[in-house]
């Protein structure tokens, strides 16, 4: 299973340059917003997740993966662990961005990043992944077009909901809910994926 996560990272290396573009340009655009850490942290997560799933579809890799000595539920588990990893990376990116901004441009009033905000970001990233992955497995036959459109819609919904939630209240509760949703999502995805034909 670890092999699969390494595989996703190896494959992502090829599109790293493109990813870096997102990671650098986005913070610069959103720095002045008080809720700015959200897009800065969430977009990289979405992009990395989308990248790893579209790579699988592009080459019809599910045929290859299904032929390897590995259980289908572990193939799905690896994707979810990847999503967890990307979520953490997103939090780190948002944190680093805020530090760099504070040091480089002290005149800018950047109010982030506190622990509460980091927890909130993590929760939202997990929620996004929990919504995205089962849909990806369900609709993957229709090709990446459909999945990407659905993903973009979900991303904007997640962002607009989050701009309305006050930042400091119920952070831990949100995280717990997110983790629960994540697990539920995993079991759903395993059920969908186990019945698929490739």
């Amino acid at each position, binding site marked *: 299973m670890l*092999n699969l996560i*390494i*595989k996703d990272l*190896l*494959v992502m290396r*090829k599109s790293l340059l493109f990813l870096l573009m997102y990671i650098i340009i986005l913070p610069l655009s959103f720095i002045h917003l008080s809720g700015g850490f959200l897009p800065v942290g969430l977009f990289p997560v979405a992009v990395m997740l989308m990248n790893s799933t579209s*790579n699988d579809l*592009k*080459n*019809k*890799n599910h*045929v*290859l993966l*299904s*032929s*390897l*000595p*590995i*259980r289908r539920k572990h193939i799905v588990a690896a994707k979810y662990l990847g999503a967890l990893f990307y979520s953490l990376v997103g939090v780190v990116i948002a944190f680093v961005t805020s530090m760099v901004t504070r040091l480089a441009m002290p005149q800018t009033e950047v109010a982030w990043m506190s622990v509460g905000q980091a927890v909130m970001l993590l929760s939202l990233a997990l929620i996004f992944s929990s919504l995205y992955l089962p849909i990806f497995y369900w609709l993957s036959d229709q090709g990446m077009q459909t999945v990407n459109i659905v993903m973009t819609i979900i991303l904007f919904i997640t962002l607009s909901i989050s701009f309305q939630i006050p930042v400091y209240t119920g952070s831990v509760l949100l995280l717990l809910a997110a983790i629960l949703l994540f697990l539920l999502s995993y079991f759903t995805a395993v059920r969908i994926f*186990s*019945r*698929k*034909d*490739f």
Partner: protein
Amino acid sequence: MNVIEIRNLHKQYGSFSLQDVSFGVKQGFITGLIGPNGSGKSTLIKMIMNIVVPDSGEIAVFGQKMPDCEKEIKQRIAFVPDESYYYEDLTIAEMKRIIAPFYKRWSEDVFQGYLEQFELPANKKIKDLSKGMKMKFSLALALSHETDLLIMDEPTAGLDPVFRRELLDILAGLILDEQKSILFSTHITTDLDRIADYITFLNRGQIVFSEAKDNVLERYVLVKGNKELLDRDTSQLFVGIRETGVGFEGLAANRSEAASQFGAHAVLETPSLEDIMFFTVKGGGIRA
């Protein structure tokens, strides 16, 4: 001993279905799965590998049930799919780095040996490989971990005649220790003429026969004669008939019966596997 045992397999795909498929693949031999395009060969093979999920039925490999024991079973299977499903942007070496760790009995030396033998440069991107080279790469990957069963889906399709023969020689060489088994699907019957021991013939989702190649060739007979010999009763004898300008050609499934009916009046020949496939698939009378 059957290395693969299939019982009452069903699969419905829209208008196509595999119905009540049952057969066994014998250990230590080469079994060829033949059938026309769309007969269900690839689907059957994918079901054995649990790439496609059957609607009902049982599959057992090495005596263990699929998909319950799929992890242990697949460690011992070398699988070569009909197309290349690798990450096109990666190189051969990188792709190997992804696949090799899954197999406990991977041998790097054997893999490098095959790369040399097939003349595959390790740093070439997969999208830059020709079709034949992709097949060679699939083969190199499949053969580099110790396996007891090699399953190949249309391995010779699209290959040049030179490599096709090389491939068949490699397969024949693998079988020599009588422990390994090979199952491959094809619609190129001449490949089977060359190396198959057992033949399983699939047509429109159903098994026509599954037996030793020599048996098949002894059992079937091609009857060539004048049209007058054909009447309603005698036509029943044939699996398929083809009317030519000078008479008719018919495939009969029972040589002794055909001999007693037509022996004196017509020419009886041993059919090729291609004849058997042609007449069975066509069935009924056809104008030449």
